[in-house]
């Protein structure tokens, strides 16, 4: 009962926070990792409802020592992955999709394998909207 009411309180707080924030995170998910695999990828759609551009500048999560923002590009059949050290711009009244073979979060030095069905929090730091915390679910896909 206690945990239920705590969860309710948390959900309420989360909804209040998200109601106030112009940033919305849709469908955050992470791919399940194998034992010994030290990195994982995170995907989501970042929606900016504000009339000004914003920027995702950093991210953090208790599951990883570090979270980086990456872009994968395919160039003549060659996969290239680069860290976006200047962050990721989110257009005003627009959205940016982080998806496989494209933009993604990279969870570095995972502390434990990400198991399908589990979920974990990720704190996203935006230049204007501040901190947005979202819950990533781990999926085997």
């Amino acid at each position, binding site marked *: 009962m206690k945990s239920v009411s705590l969860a309710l309180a948390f959900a309420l707080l989360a909804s209040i926070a998200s109601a106030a924030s112009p940033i919305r995170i849709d469908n955050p998910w992470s791919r399940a990792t194998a*034992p*010994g*695999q030290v*990195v994982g990828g995170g995907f989501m759609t970042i929606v900016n409802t504000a009339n000004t551009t914003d920027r995702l500048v950093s991210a953090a999560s208790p599951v990883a020592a570090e979270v980086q923002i990456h872009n994968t590009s395919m160039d003549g059949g*060659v996969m290239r992955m*680069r*860290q976006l050290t200047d962050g990721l711009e989110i257009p005003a009244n627009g959205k940016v999709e982080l998806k496989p073979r494209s933009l993604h979060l*990279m969870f570095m030095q995972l502390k434990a394998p990400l198991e399908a069905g589990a979920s974990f929090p990720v704190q996203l730091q935006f230049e204007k909207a501040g901190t947005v915390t979202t819950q990533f679910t781990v999926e*085997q896909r």
Partner: protein
Amino acid sequence: MSRSNRAAMLLAAAALTLTACSPPPPPFNASEVSGIAYGKDIGIADTSGQIRRIEDFKDQVTLVFFGFTRCPDVCPSTLMRLRQVRDALGEDASKLQVLLVSVDPERDTPDRLDAYVKNFDPSFIGLRPEPTELEKVVKAFHAIAVKVPTADGKDYTVDHSATIYVYDRGNQLRLIAQPDIAIDAFAADLRRLAQES
């Protein structure tokens, strides 16, 4: 003209008509290649240390592609799709062998590489060239693998070819597929190769 001659001519004409009318086999969905000896005679150790060559996978449709376990995006996507392709093959799945060649043997220990590929399908095999052999292996497939330092300079990632090399049951390179090929389309290609005599 004798009756038998006439019959023979009619038969020949019928055969010609048949040949002319039967459509050529439809193209494969992936790019078709022939007479290209990529990867031929190259032996690479699997995660138990046994040297494997394409030619060892007799009667199997063999897929080869490059990747590494610190690749969080394209490599798992490809492995997951190949798992789905394998599932779509049904009874022909047993004729499919997937080989992932590590482009990061220094960090991909045999155990780590094995767990990584088997996380997607227990039939998948990880191959791990010795670090000193990597360049030779990559060249044998006319592929690319380049170490690139990360932005903070403390680490590195590996840019690498993401194409999938498809060998038929006679161990000849037949198709080159891009990693985003549709699952149904790729499964149809592989089913055709699996059912070739």
